[in-house]
């Protein structure tokens, strides 16, 4: 069977599709703001005419390469293409800043491959027993897992615990927007806006919080991302960096696979958890957040393992582990192959697909290493030129999800939130995890109650649930108990504290206080608003807003004495070379949204790119004009050629 599978996968036509998929995946992955889900969804219609095996190899190649390509921009520019590569920014970007971008990309390629390979072994070797185990994981267990992950977040943000909890609460509040958690028949916190009735897509919040915030920084700093003149490293050194850390490799692969195998948890959770776990146990934890190779290895291996691990529930249970896997599953169905328990009974086809997945991973390694050198040069492009281009891609990415300009405006708003968080050293990632975990915890809580016919005992009578909840309690209480046990205080490294960057140009305490007041008002409104809904729909919002109010007021009480202290010390503000002040950047983004709505994407993009680069200080028209007009034409062709419903002319020429 295996030999036959490999022979089919190695047929010239399939190899051709494999390479093509790799190529397309790399391009889509490298573009910031568009991730694997976008790539697979766009390419899906092109596979209809293909033979099922070729189609699956093609799509799996796009899926895997996109996931790797996503890391490239995270590492080089700190602008993740989708939420799955957010943790790659944390140590990848500092490495780039040290002039080791090539090595970091090498680590990403090798890490993705290593994770993917382990995932593949698991997929082919023990898919069946794992499936049996995954079936037993029900609503109460998912609830317990969600609570555990939330606990991990608050623990990880030690040093800034209060800010971490506050931002996680805000993230949870954002996740409350949408359908009610019990039947989904009514909506809450949608304020009559139809686009809010089904909730806010992750892509929109993620692009705003991470990519747009970073772009604002880039516009502000001007010059280029990296000041080091020439990169002195090679991508091949990434091999060694990964291989000399077998423990890191093993830990991250286990985390990635575990999360990948359980349906409905998703790849983002895998890469974030992989990073956090490594940060807790690694010997290099002191360097985490400042360019520790181990951190990047962990994030990449977990992600790679989850990307392939995700396919296990997709193929064997018919339950997709992520959005991308859901689209892959759709492709299977269209080609007349049933994902699910009978998948393996389709003759040599499944073996050919599995062989194809392995070849994809190998191909990814080779292309990843060989193109790293060229991609690494992108950091020497002036920010005034690079940043506006990334903005355009963010606009495209957030628009493409639901085809509405509303989402683009929402994304810019999230950008403002992300930027404010950076300035005031709030951990944005806590918010992202709140957004991701909110539905997991809340929906499964009510689901469990219904499964238990309304009795809360269901959370303690199921063994797996009980173990998970006890583990969470142990986790949470460990920092308080451990000093008594070990009698020595070990300095924990605050992960998120180290993510501060950009020099605070204004007195941060002023902004911080204002922000805190806004946050308190927000939670007050949430508390007031949640009373309008019936008991079950309003309960989680009520609880979260009370926690938010409590933590916020406590934080305020701590801040006030600090202000007095600060006044006495009189710290002089650090002078910064302001290229484009943030207020101007956000005004430009706002104008871009308006123009997007009125005159369509291509035309508004040309105007925006010209304007923003000009204001940013890049005024060589010989480069600017062809670049901007070319981008506009490209967007126009993209809309026409790929059938993406882009607003080509906005309201100028109504469709």
């Amino acid at each position: 069977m295996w030999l036959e599978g490999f022979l089919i996968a190695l047929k010239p036509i399939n190899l051709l599709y494999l390479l093509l998929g790799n190529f397309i995946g790399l391009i889509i992955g490298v573009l910031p703001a568009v991730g694997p889900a976008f790539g697979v969804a766009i390419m899906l219609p092109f596979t209809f005419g293909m033979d099922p095996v070729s189609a699956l190899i093609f799509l799996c190649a796009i899926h895997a390469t996109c996931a790797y390509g996503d890391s490239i921009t995270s590492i080089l520019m700190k602008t993740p293409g989708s939420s799955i590569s957010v943790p790659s920014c944390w140590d990848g970007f500092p490495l780039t800043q040290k002039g080791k971008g090539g090595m970091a990309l090498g680590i990403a390629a090798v890490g993705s491959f290593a994770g993917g390979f382990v995932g593949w072994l698991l997929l082919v070797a023990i898919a069946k027993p794992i499936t049996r185990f995954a079936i037993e994981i029900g609503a109460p267990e998912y609830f317990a897992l969600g609570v555990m992950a939330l606990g991990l977040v608050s623990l990880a943000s030690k040093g800034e615990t209060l800010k971490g909890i506050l931002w996680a609460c805000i993230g949870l509040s954002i996740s409350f927007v949408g359908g009610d958690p019990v039947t989904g028949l009514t909506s809450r916190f949608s304020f009559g806006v139809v686009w809010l009735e089904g909730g806010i897509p992750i892509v929109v919040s993620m692009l705003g919080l991470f990519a747009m915030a970073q772009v604002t920084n880039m516009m502000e700093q001007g010059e280029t991302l990296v000041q080091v003149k020439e990169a002195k490293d090679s991508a091949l050194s990434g091999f060694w960096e990964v291989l000399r850390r077998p423990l890191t490799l093993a830990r991250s692969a286990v985390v990635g696979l575990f999360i990948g195998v359980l349906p409905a948890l998703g790849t983002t959770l895998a890469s974030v958890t992989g990073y956090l776990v490594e940060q807790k146990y690694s010997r290099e934890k002191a360097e985490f957040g400042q360019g520790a190779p181990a951190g990047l290895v962990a994030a990449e291996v977990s992600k790679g393992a989850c990307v392939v691990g995700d396919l296990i529930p997709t193929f064997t249970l018919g339950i997709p582990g992520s959005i991308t896997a859901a689209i892959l599953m759709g492709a299977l169905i269209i080609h007349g192959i049933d994902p699910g328990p009978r998948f393996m009974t389709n003759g040599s086809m499944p073996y050919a697909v599995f062989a194809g997945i392995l070849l994809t991973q190998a191909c990814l390694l080779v292309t990843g290493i060989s193109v790293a050198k060229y991609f690494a040069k992108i950091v020497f492009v002036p920010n005034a030129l690079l940043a506006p281009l990334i903005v355009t891609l963010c606009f495209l990415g957030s628009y493409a999800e639901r085809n509405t300009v509303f989402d683009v405006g929402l994304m810019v708003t999230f950008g403002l939130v992300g930027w404010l968080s950076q300035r005031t050293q709030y951990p944005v990632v806590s918010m992202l995890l709140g957004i991701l975990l909110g539905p997991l915890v809340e929906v499964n809580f009510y689901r469990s109650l219904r499964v238990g016919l309304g009795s809360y005992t269901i959370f303690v009578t199921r063994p797996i649930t009980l173990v998970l909840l006890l583990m969470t309690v142990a986790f949470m209480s460990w920092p308080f108990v451990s000093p008594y046990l070990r009698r020595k205080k070990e300095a924990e490294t605050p992960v998120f504290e180290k993510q501060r960057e950009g020099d605070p140009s204004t007195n941060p305490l002023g902004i911080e206080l204002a922000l805190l007041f806004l946050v308190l008002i927000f939670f007050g409104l949430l508390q007031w608003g949640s009373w309008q809904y019936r008991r079950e729909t309003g309960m989680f919002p009520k609880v979260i807003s009370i926690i938010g109010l409590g933590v916020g007021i406590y934080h305020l009480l701590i801040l006030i004495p600090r202000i007095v202290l600060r006044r006495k010390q009189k710290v002089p503000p650090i002078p910064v070379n302001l290229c484009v002040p943030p207020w101007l950047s956000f005004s430009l983004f706002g104008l871009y949204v308006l123009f997007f709505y009125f005159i369509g994407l291509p035309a508004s993009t040309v105007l925006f790119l010209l304007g923003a680069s000009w204001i940013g200080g890049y005024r060589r028209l010989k480069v600017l004009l062809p670049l901007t007009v070319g981008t506009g034409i490209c967007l126009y062709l993209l809309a026409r050629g790929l059938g993406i419903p882009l607003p080509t002319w906005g309201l100028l020429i109504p469709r």
Partner: protein
Amino acid sequence: MSALQKMVWKRLMILLFAAASFVGMAGLSEAAIYPDHDITFIVPFKPGGGLDTQARILAPFLKKYLPQPVNIVVENHTAAGGKVGALKVFDAKPDGYTIGILSPNSVALLSVMGDLGKRNPADLIYLCRTGHAPYMLVLSSRSRFKNIQEMRGQKVKFGGTTSVVFQGALIAKEIGCEMVFVTYDGFPETAMATMRGDVDVFFFNWDSGIKHVNASEGKLQMITIASQNRLPELPNLPTAKEVGMAIGPEEMEVMAAGNIVLAPPGLPVDVRNTLEKAVQTAIRDPELENRMKQANYTMKPILTPKETRDAALGVHATYVKNKSMLEKIK
């Protein structure tokens, strides 16, 4: 400029002018014939789902049977659980360049929940029905019940997605039990939950779900099917009537999966005729039926536009009649 150059120049201009006017005339004459450019096909759910799959299978066949082979571009408008897509179809310009695929159940649900505003499902232009399969009731082997009789008067846990809460309530009414509805994100998730014993029963369109029963190693047991007669494909499965559930014909129509292809209200008659003809020919293409079968969808019985309309509006009427039941669940 020499005389020769002048002449060449002049001739060139004449040629150009002639070509331009020709193209212009061709454009004018073609504009009168529908269709002359791409048709947008709205799908209110994500790529990869059931509606999307059916739309994408249908699209190339529709192109084949239209008088001019224009592209059928599938657009996924996913937001608010299908509401945005449905509204797009309702509010599109009725020129024949926008059509959509919706499920009659979801249109009825939106209408009854007041999400459609003043829009009336009766105004839509119904073109055809794609796929039709009655629901089948499945019991978990780990459930405390062994048959329908034991469920009477008891609290029974039903699993399913949000979109089938109404059908669940109807079935519970016929069984005479109290329903505790547990919502899941999708159909495979519900099947797994039932295998786990977290819920007692669930129901699904038999064509795309039977594989789960076959692969469950006895953990899922088929009890009954919501159809008037036994299905030729499943001769051993008793009908609802045989197991003592008195489901009326209107309610039976609600308990089936099937989607409809629609055009916005107010479509001009000639455009409507062209579209109807193309769609109706397409769904009778044996190759299309094959592809649908490959993806586990049964096309039969094939309905005319009028029959499609009657069936869909029948579903709507049943929802309106049982509105109070929905209010209670909500």
